[in-house]
Every structure is written in structure tokens, then in C-alpha cells.
């Protein structure tokens, strides 16, 4: 079939759901476009898509239908409509000319003065270790959902400006591994957390009596009364791993305080599961660097898992060709999941299955591996599932001691117990899996804690409630009605950085210090005690959680004293200074546990779990998904995260329902419409995002939107961002809810989706006047072009075909007649322009598509490092987002079982840069070191360069995005700017600079040290490899991004550029990019792959 026929075939399938060979028998299907009749028990099952043809690469379903923005319209739009419209602001065209006239007249006068008078304000006493203008780095830590993260904070003259992972930390970096750099990745959430430090919306003083302004003194005055009633006091805390908090907790419980802990996104099921399997709660820590076969069961290893950064790192190590498994070997990842996650995107084999089917699947897997009877479940007999399981089991059996299975947060405890048993059968413990003792084994689960607490509050058994962080009014299970229960508590105190929903419902609100303002200690997932030191005095006052507890105990100790005391109790007083410097206490990881399995019975299956994979409306499953924007809602006031596109959907500034393609077809749902999801008697209306590869009959509801008291960014009563999906999350369906009904409201709602923005593929495939059918032309062009943008191979090809190369060296230009004529265009060389001769450094980058998990850490790191503005939802829809790194996400294969490739694209720093040739003012020029420089002060905003860039990496400041920072109110926000990078103004083009500020500063430092004799060597020599790291490289948890100097033949980047997997984008344009990609290597099970191939013929 040609591409064209395939498209038509697919269209036909879409018109007639269920008409395919695998569809349900055709007597009673619903019309896919009708409004849908909900809740009748004998509703027919939703249609199954016919086996869709295998496509090349595509970005969206719309594109497969030939309706993507760049496919419709005669020329194929290079930029979406709106991006070339005049800016939407009070400056109308008419006013603009008025102002222009005036400013021309006054131009001369304006120049007759100096710049604004500036002051130099040196400290009266300069601290010993501080040099003005030079950044310093301190180890510190933060905590997210009860898990510590070791950080390295960069501070400029006393203000922290950047957060990265602490490379010295044993868990974060994974220790010294030959062949890799000692580096620790840092998730997008943690990177962006620094924005909250300077957020002008943070709460600045306590409030009493539900919102009346108050003061810290008034709060302190109220404390004795509170202390008197400690026996009736209850504390509700966020999950915390802090040893100091734990010590204070023990003392408070001793005084009669009751303690509860709640997190809306919790890994409690894993504890409960290991308790079933081993008799006590344990924490499994997988050693992915040793695993040959990794199986995830509804688990996102690279984003949601508490050890995600470490897992990404370890995964990349065993994924590399010459990684931890040895030369020529790489791991194989099997993912079974409902919602498409990044782990599924990295997987070699992925099976989309409703989350509730995790239990029967685990039972079946257990039965096959350790002997037993497989459960009677219809879906297990389905050919796709049966085949997947058969090959998976075969491989696991062949890889005993080298395989590991990991189950996710949403799976019930029984599944975790079964997975533990499976891992025992695989011989994983001690090899690919370590069990450590749970540090807080007696704690009831978060769900039970909040249920019991709310019950006690409603019954009036709570005299005073102290809440340490959290936002239960917003995120507690909806059926508990926490807000009403809170109303029955006489005194409630809420400690939080923001005056959020819970603060407004509490009698007292006390501002909490940011983690960069307070002393603290946390434990990373392996238990290593990690110390947090403040980098700045509290900007708005406030207390940390441990300081508040200390006040409650009547001691008034400062944070440092409290943490130090805990340190002393651990017997580590002598090492205090060194440990604060390092940021962690070596050797404090949790003790490895010897495990002995205990027998347990798997529970009986429900009707839903015994059924097939097709569901009727009303029987649908809903899974609650962590938000890539706000985590659980807590980052709602973070504009960086809102504007960083989701990993797979590429949507910004929203949350939505994820609906699989076939489910959407059956329900008559469409992208960009509002749908109503009803669970029991609760319902929520939110936009629908149709995603390929989501399990049939499963709806993913993204949490964390629709806040009503988040701040100016995250929403308030009048203007919300996203939709409150907690409204339908109840104790019964906390992780996975069943019996959901979905109906379309028919209302259109456009998501700010960037997946069709900045498309490299535009304008390819010929001109419309030659081929009349533009869609047809582009589809063909795509088929031809895409395999060149994304190159893939398999482990087998690499091993068997020694001659395989991702790119034939210069085959495009290997015309012997022209050899040697490269600098004489008139004689027919390759380029019209003179070839450059590079003498010194030649900066370059290599990006490994094999290990890029698409986690967005690089994107947020770039935003923080380079002062990149945010533009807001409306302007994103106008294609005006400013992010310098975009991560292109391509699907390939069929709609039901697509594969995914992530491709981070920033400026390619072409040696023959097309942008440079068209700049009329020389604002973008080439440096001697091969950088494509951008002089903002020269740019006059013609946008010719962006137009001429084949990679679409240039970003234009259509409006003055930084205007608001000049408001007095936002004075504090300005402290976050990186002083090493110009803040750009309106009308200026910008793009990735390879972090030129870091390059220049490293060069200057090295040369100064060499010239002053502090360092051996010569100034013209290359810098040691790894001395300069770009921000994206530093943040990347998998070391997929490598930056360095090609002049150094031994540098990692030079070796990677020579690698046979390396290729450049669009080589036929002869731009000679300095950025090369390494082809994505997949490692499918050979027999399974062959069987799948057979199935398609």
C-alpha cells in the first residue's frame, strides 16, 4: 500500500468504527458522532480500531488525516496562523505611527544624556569567601512528596539563581562510573522550584480568623494557649523524610499530639505490597544498570518514580552500547501500562492495558514463572496480550538474575506483592533489586490517614489542627469533604509558602520559608541523610516546619540548631562542617534487608478484571495521572512548568483527559472539545486529548489544575488554569476509578498545543501548483523526509552489520568532479559561501536519541540559565513560545501501538549557517570557534533569520515579555535573573547560544589561571573535556547531551561525532551543523519482533 492509500484506508476505518476484522460483531454499534447515551447497562462495547496500517513518523492524529496546520492551505504554513500578526497590545497601528513620529523627532534629544545613573554598593564587610561578580555553589536539598533531592545551588552575590543535582551525592550521581561523567540530573520540577523563592505571590505574613491580616507576634502570642491543649491537637503533615522532623514528631506524640501524614500522590501501595509479601514494609530499589530485562507494570520509571533521576541514569548506563552491561549489550525494556508514559515511550515492547488489569496480569505472570494456574480472564486470551506475555515470560526465564519487574504507584498492594514474588522467582533480589528497610514502617497509609483524620474532625474530636504544608482542601479525596470537616475544627493552623485553598479555610495561616531559606535535612530515596542549608535569609519572613514544631514544644530553637541536634544524636557532630559542605552524610543509606517471602493469597478478580479489553461506556476506567506541569497541583503558580510542554501530549497551560484513539472514536469524542467524565455521582468537565497508544477503555485524568487560590499565575476564583480533577477522585477510586461514563458536551475548547509548531518538515514534498493535492504531496514528502530526521536502528543491526552507519559520510556531496572546489562557488563547489577555517576551539554537541527520555529537565534548565521569558497561554497558541530547546516528539507505527522518539532540538550551530547570510545588520554572525553568535543589541527584528532557519530554532520577542518584571511589585522576581545573560527586549531574535556565557567564563578563568601561573598548560591549548557544561547537559539525568570541543580529538563529543550512529539533520542543505544526533537504538526481542512482523503481513 502506498502512503496515500494507507491514509484513505485509515479514514475509512475512522468513519466506520468496529467495521474492521477485530471489531465487535456489527449489529449494534453506536454512531461515533452522536451525543452519546450514557449509563445503560446493556450498552454495546466500544468499538475497536481495525488494525491500523503502519505509518512512518507522525506527530499527531490530525496529521495522519492530512489535516495538520502545515498540510492544509496551499503553501503549507511554515508558521501557524497568527504568528505573523501584529502584537496584540494597546499599541495599535495608528498609535504606533503617532508614537513613531514623536520618537523620531525626539530621537536626537534622547541620545543627549548618559545611561541611567548606576550605583556601586559594596558590602561594608565582604565575607571572606565572596568575590563580587563570581558565582558560588553550595550543596543543599529539597523535598518533593516525602522524597529528598540532593541539590547544588548556584548563588550570585548572595542570591540563588540556579538549582542542579549534587554530583557528589552517592545516590543522585550513582557514584563514580568509568566512561561517564560524575553528574547528577535534576528533574524539571526541582529545577523550577527556584522560581517559587522569588514569587511575589508568596504569602508574606500570617493571617488570623480566616484571612484577616495578622503578624508573627500575634501568632506567637497565641502559641501558649495551643501548647496548653496539646493533647487535643492533631498535626497533619506532608510526607517528609526529615530525621529532624521525625525527632520532633516523636517528642510531640509523647505529649499527646496525634500525627497524620497525607500526600495526594503516594507510593504507599508498594509498602503495603511488600508487607504482604515479606511480612514487613520494605522499599525495593532496582539496580537498572545491572538489568538485562526490565519490566514495568503501570510504572513510570523516568518521571513519576521517587528515584526517577537515578533510575534514568542507571537505565541509560545499561542502555548504552558500551555501558554497564558490557560492549555490544544493552538492556531491554518491556512496559505494560494504561496511560502512555515516558517509560512506555522508551520501551522496546509496550502493551497498552487498562490499569485494573494489572492484577490479573501479575497473577498470570506469577503463575507462569513460579508455576500455578493462570487466572480466567478474557483479555489474557486476546492474541496481542497472549503473544506479549508468551515472549516476555520466555525472556524472563532465560534472564534469571538479570531481570527485574517494577510495579507502579497506581497498582494495588496485591500487585506489588505479586511483583515481589515474581522478582523472587527471577532471582532479582541481590542482583538487580535491593530491598531496604522502610524508614517509617508503622505509618498508616496516606489514604487511611486522611480518612481517619477527617472522620475525627467531623466527629469533633480534634481540638486544634496544625497542617504542615499540603493543601488538603484542594487535594484530599472528594468524598471526605475535608473543607467541611475543617470548618468543625475550632483552631486550625496552616503553614505554607502560599495562602492557598486550605489557608483560606483555616483559622490561622503562617507563611512557610522556602527550602532555600531554611535549614533542614531530608533523606533521598535510598535513605542517605542529605542536609539543606539556607542560601538566603527569608525574603518574607516565615517559619520552616521544624521551627514551628519547636515553637510548639516551647523551645524556640532555630532551624540550624535543630538540624545540628539531630546530627549530634546520629553521632556525627564531628563531621558537621564537612557534611554541610558536601550536602550529605556518607554511609547513612537505609540498611539492606534480608527477605523471606511469606505466603499470601491473591484476591479474587472482579468482573472488570476478568473481562476483555473492550469496555462499554459506563464501565470505563479512570486513572489519575501526575501532572507534568504542577506535580499534584503544588507547582500551580510556576509559569516555567506550565509553559513547558508535556512530554507526550505537547500541551501547555492546561490539564485534560487522556483518551485513547479507539476509545475516543467509539465514544464520539474529539480532540479540543470539552467532555464530561462522570464517576458515580461526581462529574468533571474538561478538554479531551486524544492520544495514540492509550489503553482501550481507560481514561487518564491529569491532576493538578483548576486551583482557586494558587496565585496570579496558577489561578484564583475568577480565572483558573486547567480543571479540577480532584473533584472526582474519591477514596474508593483514588488511583484507579471504575465505572466511569464519558460524554461529549460538544463545546469546543482549544488546548494550547505546540506539537505542530516549529515543524522542520514544512514546505517539503513539492509545490502545490505542480501537484494539485497539497495533502497528498505533503504526505509523500513526509514519508520520504522523516526517516532522515529520526534515524533508528536495532541492537541486532549494530552487532551484526559492522558496516552500518546512520549516515553515509558525505554521500550527498561526494561528487568527485567538485572535490576541492569548496571555496570557489562560481566553479561549482558545495556551498555558495566560503568555507571557514577553524584554528582553535570547535564547540559541538552530540545528543543521543537512545537515552533521551524526553523528561524536559534540559528545557527548564535552559529557561533558568538563559533568562527565557514565558509568554502565557494565548501567545503560545500564536506560536510565540520562547523556549530555546524544544523536544520534538514523533510517533511511528500504528495508532494503537505507536512507538515514540524524542528529539531535543536547539540551535544546530551550523558551520554554513543560513540565518547568518540573510541578516541585513550582521546581528547574527559566526564566531571563530564555530558558534552562531547572536548580538541582541544589533538585532532590528526583521525575522529573516528565523525564516531562513531550516531547523526552526529561532525565537522572536514579539512582545516585551519582561515588561512586568519592571513593576515595583515584581522587584524581587528580578533577583532570579542570571546576570551573565542579557535580558532581551521586544523586537529581538534569540536562540540557543550553547551557553556561551559558560564557555567564555571558563575560558577566561582558565587563561587567567595559566597566565598567573596557578595552572599548568598553555593558553592556546584545549580545555579539559567536561570543564564546560551547558545547562541542558548538566541537567540531563541520562547524559544524553554531551557538549565539548572537537579540536580535542579525545573529547567525548569528538568521539561521539565519529560514532557510526551519529548523523546530522538535513545534511542535503549543507549547513554542516555542529550538533549531531546519535541514532535511536531499539532492542526488540528478536523472536517477538519476528512474530509481530508476521502478524502484519
Amino acid at each position, binding site marked *: 500500500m502506498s502512503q496515500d492509500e494507507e491514509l484513505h484506508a485509515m479514514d475509512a476505518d475512522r468513519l466506520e468504527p468496529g467495521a474492521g476484522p477485530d471489531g465487535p460483531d456489527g449489529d449494534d454499534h453506536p454512531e461515533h458522532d452522536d451525543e452519546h447515551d450514557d449509563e445503560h447497562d446493556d450498552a454495546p462495547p466500544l468499538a475497536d480500531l481495525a488494525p491500523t496500517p503502519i505509518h512512518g513518523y507522525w506527530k499527531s492524529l490530525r496529521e495522519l488525516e492530512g489535516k495538520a496546520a502545515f498540510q492544509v492551505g496551499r503553501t503549507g504554513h511554515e508558521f501557524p496562523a497568527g504568528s505573523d500578526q501584529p502584537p496584540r497590545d494597546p499599541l495599535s497601528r495608528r498609535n504606533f505611527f503617532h508614537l513613531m513620529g514623536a520618537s523620531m523627532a525626539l530621537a536626537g534629544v534622547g541620545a543627549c544624556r548618559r545611561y541611567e545613573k548606576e550605583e556601586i554598593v559594596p558590602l*561594608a564587610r565582604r565575607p571572606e569567601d565572596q568575590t563580587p561578580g563570581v558565582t558560588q555553589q553550595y550543596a543543599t536539598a529539597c523535598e518533593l512528596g516525602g522524597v529528598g533531592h540532593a541539590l547544588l545551588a548556584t548563588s550570585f552575590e548572595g542570591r540563588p539563581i540556579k538549582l542542579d543535582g549534587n554530583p557528589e551525592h552517592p545516590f543522585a550521581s550513582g557514584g563514580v562510573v568509568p566512561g561517564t561523567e560524575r553528574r547528577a540530573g535534576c528533574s524539571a520540577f526541582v529545577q523550577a522550584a527556584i522560581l517559587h523563592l522569588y514569587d511575589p505571590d508568596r504569602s508574606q505574613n500570617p493571617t488570623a480568623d480566616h484571612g484577616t491580616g495578622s503578624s508573627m507576634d500575634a501568632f506567637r502570642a497565641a502559641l501558649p494557649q495551643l501548647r496548653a491543649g496539646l493533647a487535643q491537637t492533631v498535626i497533619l503533615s506532608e510526607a517528609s523524610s526529615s530525621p529532624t522532623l521525625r525527632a520532633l514528631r516523636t517528642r510531640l506524640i509523647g505529649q499527646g499530639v496525634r500525627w497524620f501524614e497525607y500526600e495526594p500522590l503516594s507510593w504507599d501501595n508498594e509498602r503495603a505490597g511488600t508487607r504482604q509479601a515479606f511480612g514487613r514494609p520494605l522499599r525495593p530499589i532496582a539496580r537498572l544498570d545491572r538489568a538485562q530485562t526490565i519490566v514495568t507494570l503501570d510504572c513510570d520509571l523516568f518521571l513519576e518514580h521517587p528515584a526517577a533521576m537515578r533510575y534514568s541514569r542507571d537505565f541509560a548506563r545499561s542502555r548504552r552500547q558500551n555501558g554497564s552491561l558490557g560492549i555490544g549489550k544493552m538492556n531491554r525494556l518491556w512496559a505494560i501500562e494504561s496511560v502512555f508514559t515516558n517509560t512506555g515511550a522508551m520501551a522496546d515492547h509496550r502493551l497498552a492495558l487498562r490499569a485494573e488489569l494489572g492484577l490479573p496480569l501479575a497473577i498470570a505472570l506469577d503463575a507462569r514463572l513460579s508455576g500455578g494456574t493462570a487466572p480466567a480472564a478474557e483479555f489474557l486470551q486476546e492474541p496481542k496480550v497472549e503473544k506479549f506475555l508468551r515472549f516476555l515470560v520466555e525472556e524472563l526465564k532465560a534472564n534469571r538474575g538479570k531481570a527485574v519487574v517494577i510495579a507502579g504507584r497506581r497498582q494495588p498492594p496485591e500487585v506489588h506483592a505479586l511483583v515481589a514474588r515474581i522478582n523472587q522467582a527471577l532471582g532479582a533480589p541481590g542482583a538487580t533489586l535491593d530491598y531496604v528497610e522502610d524508614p517509617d514502617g508503622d505509618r498508616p497509609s496516606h489514604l487511611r490517614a486522611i480518612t481517619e483524620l477527617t472522620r475525627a474532625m467531623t466527629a469533633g474530636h480534634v481540638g486544634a489542627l496544625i497542617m504542615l504544608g499540603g493543601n488538603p482542601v484542594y487535594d484530599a479525596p472528594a468524598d471526605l469533604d475535608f473543607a467541611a470537616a475543617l470548618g468543625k475544627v475550632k483552631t486550625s493552623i496552616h503553614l505554607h509558602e502560599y495562602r492557598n485553598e486550605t489557608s483560606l479555610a483555616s483559622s490561622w495561616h503562617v507563611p512557610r520559608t522556602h527550602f532555600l531559606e531554611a535549614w533542614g535535612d531530608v533523606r533521598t530515596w535510598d535513605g542517605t541523610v542529605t542536609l539543606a542549608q539556607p542560601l538566603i535569609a527569608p525574603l518574607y519572613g516565615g517559619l520552616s516546619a521544624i521551627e514551628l514544631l519547636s515553637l510548639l514544644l516551647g523551645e524556640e530553637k532555630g532551624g540550624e540548631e535543630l538540624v545540628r541536634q539531630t546530627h549530634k544524636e546520629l553521632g556525627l557532630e564531628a563531621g558537621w562542617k564537612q557534611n554541610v559542605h558536601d550536602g550529605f552524610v556518607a554511609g547513612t543509606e537505609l540498611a539492606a534487608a534480608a527477605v523471606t517471602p511469606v505466603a499470601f493469597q491473591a484476591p479474587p478478580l472482579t468482573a472488570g478484571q476478568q473481562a476483555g479489553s473492550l469496555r462499554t461506556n459506563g464501565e470505563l476506567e479512570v486513572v489519575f495521572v501526575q501532572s507534568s506541569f504542577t506535580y499534584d497541583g503544588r507547582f500551580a503558580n510556576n509559569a516555567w512548568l506550565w509553559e513547558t510542554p508535556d512530554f507526550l501530549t505537547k500541551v501547555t497551560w492546561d490539564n485534560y483527559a487522556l483518551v485513547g484513539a479507539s476509545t475516543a472514536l467509539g465514544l464520539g469524542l474529539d480532540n479540543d472539545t470539552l467532555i464530561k467524565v462522570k464517576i458515580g455521582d461526581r462529574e468533571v468537565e474538561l478538554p479531551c486529548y486524544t492520544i495514540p497508544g492509550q489503553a482501550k477503555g481507560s481514561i487518564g485524568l491529569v491532576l493538578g489544575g483548576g486551583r482557586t487560590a494558587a496565585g496570579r499565575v496558577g489561578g484564583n476564583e475568577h480565572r483558573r488554569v486547567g480543571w479540577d480533577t480532584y473533584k472526582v477522585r474519591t477514596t474508593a477510586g483514588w488511583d484507579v476509578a471504575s465505572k466511569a461514563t464519558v460524554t461529549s458536551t460538544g463545546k469546543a475548547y482549544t488546548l494550547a498545543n505546540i506539537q505542530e509548531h516549529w515543524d522542520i518538515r514544512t514546505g517539503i514534498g513539492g509545490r502545490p501548483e505542480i501537484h494539485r493535492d497539497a495533502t497528498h504531496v505533503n504526505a509523500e514528502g513526509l514519508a520520504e523526509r522523516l526517516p532522515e530526521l529520526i534515524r533508528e536502528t536495532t541492537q541486532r543491526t549494530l552487532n551484526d552489520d559492522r558496516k552500518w552507519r546512520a549516515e553515509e559520510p558525505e554521500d550527498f556531496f561526494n561528487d568527485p568532479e567538485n572535490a576541492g572546489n569548496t571555496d570557489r562557488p562560481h566553479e561549482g563547489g558545495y556551498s555558495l559561501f566560503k568555507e571557514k577555517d577553524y584554528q582553535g576551539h570547535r564547540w559541538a554537541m552530540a545528543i543521543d536519541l537512545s537515552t533521551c527520555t524526553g523528561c524536559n529537565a534540559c528545557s527548564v534548565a535552559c529557561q533558568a540559565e538563559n533568562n527565557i521569558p514565558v509568554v502565557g497561554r494565548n501567545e503560545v497558541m500564536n506560536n510565540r513560545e520562547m523556549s530555546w530547546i524544544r523536544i520534538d516528539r514523533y510517533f511511528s507505527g500504528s495508532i494503537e501501538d505507536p512507538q515514540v522518539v524524542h528529539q531535543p532540538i536547539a540551535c544546530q550551530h551550523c558551520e554554513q549557517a543560513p540565518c547568518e547570510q540573510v541578516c541585513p545588520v550582521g546581528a547574527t554572525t559566526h564566531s571563530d570557534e564555530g558558534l552562531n553568535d547572536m548580538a541582541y543589541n544589533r538585532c532590528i527584528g526583521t525575522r529573516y533569520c528565523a525564516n531562513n532557519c531550516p531547523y526552526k530554532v529561532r525565537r522572536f520577542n514579539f512582545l516585551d515579555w519582561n515588561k512586568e518584571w519592571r513593576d515595583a511589585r515584581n522587584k524581587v522576581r528580578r533577583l532570579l535573573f542570571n546576570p551573565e545573560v542579557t535580558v532581551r527586549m521586544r523586537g529581538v531574535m534569540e536562540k540557543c547560544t550553547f551557553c556561551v556565557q559558560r564557555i567564555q567564563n571558563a575560558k577566561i578563568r582558565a587563561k587567567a589561571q595559566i597566565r598567573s601561573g596557578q595552572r599548568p598548560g598553555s593558553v592556546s591549548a584545549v580545555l579539559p573535556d567536561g570543564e564546560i557544561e551547558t545547562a541542558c547537559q548538566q541537567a540531563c539525568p541520562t547524559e544524553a547531551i554531551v557538549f565539548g570541543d572537537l579540536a580535542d580529538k579525545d573529547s567525548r563529543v569528538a568521539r561521539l561525532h565519529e560514532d557510526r550512529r551519529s548523523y546530522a539533520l538535513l545534511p542535503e542543505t549543507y549547513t554542516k551543523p555542529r550538533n549531531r544526533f546519535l541514532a535511536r537504538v531499539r532492542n526488540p526481542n528478536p523472536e517477538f519482533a519476528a512474530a509481530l512482523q508476521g502478524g502484519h503481513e
Partner: protein
Amino acid sequence: MSRFIFPEWTETLKRWINLLVLGAPVYLVALVAYGVTPEAIRIGYQPDQPVPYSHALHAGELGLDCRYCHSTVERAGKAAVPPAATCMNCHSTVKKDSDLLLPVRQAFAEDEPVHWTRVHDLPDYVYFNHSAHVNAAVGCESCHGRIDQMVKVYQAKPLTMEWCLGCHRDPTPFLRNPENVTKMGYQPQPGEGDEVRKKNGVNPPTNCSTCHR
């Protein structure tokens, strides 16, 4: 009535008037154009400072090395203005009751900084680094002029991009033996610049990103 006839000298006047009418705009444009050059506006800028600190006295007469106060100049981008504590090293004994030094003493006592006015003010999109230049053995004098003769510091050089590039294109005349970097009024020996340039490997780049980031 006979017609009025202009006397002959009005012909000359007419010529002058024409010249004036045509020439005035040219003159005005030239005047304004010169008036807004950095040379005209910026050279000689001499703001008042909170303390009438005399470089002529300290650096000239007393012969203090520049780096006694501007101690970070060799290792940082900024040649930091010293903290009040540095002043008090001497002024806790020398002239310790002077009224003129009151702001310094106050700053030291109350730990509140003195607010100096910046004289050499580059645009915010320019990233100048002192350590790069000092270690390459460019004298302080080359950019700051005879500081040792200034009672009140003023800007001596235009500090324009053209002026910067002049040296970046041919640094030899401005290089001197590293030990003389802070020496004022120093005349390099013939060939000294070439020698230092070779020895230090001074090869100043002229890329945009050298100064603009």
C-alpha cells in the same frame, strides 16, 4: 511711481542668506551628530561621590597599588569597589576624626554600604571582564587614564565598541610586562608589547559573543 530697485549689495546678501539657509541644517546636523557621540558625552563624565576620595592622593602621592583596594581584579570580572572595611584598615588610625570620612565610618559601624556612583558604565549587554585583561597584561591606564592624577575620577576614554575593537584587533601597543600592569605613566620599551603578546599568547577574539551574550 518708479519701481523700487534693490541695491546691488543685496545680491551679495542674497548669496549669504542662501548659504546660511542651506548651510544651517548641515551645521546643525553635524553639531548634533558630534554632540551625541560617546566622545562628547561620555569622556569627562565626573559624578560626585559620597566621599571625596582622591585617587590622586592615594594612588598617586601615596603610591598605593591599585590592587590593594581593587583586590578582585586579577581573578574576577569585576574590579570590585572595596568594602568600607578596607578603608578602615588605615582610617581607623589615619584621619580618624575627619568629617569627610564620616560615611565610611558610618558604613563600617552600622554595616550599611556606601552608595558610590558608577563612573565607567558599560551598557548592560556588554560583558567586560577585568581578569581577562589584567592577566593578559593590559595596563589599567589603557582604559582608565591617569587615575593617579585624578582628584575626582572621571571617564578618560570613550569606551565605545569601536574603541574596544581597536585594541582587540591590534593589542600590541597596549601590552606591557605583567609586573607593570598597575603602574601609571609607564612607557613600554620598544618591542615589549610583541614580546608579551608572544609569551602570554594574547590573541584577543573579535567575535560578537566575546562581549555580548
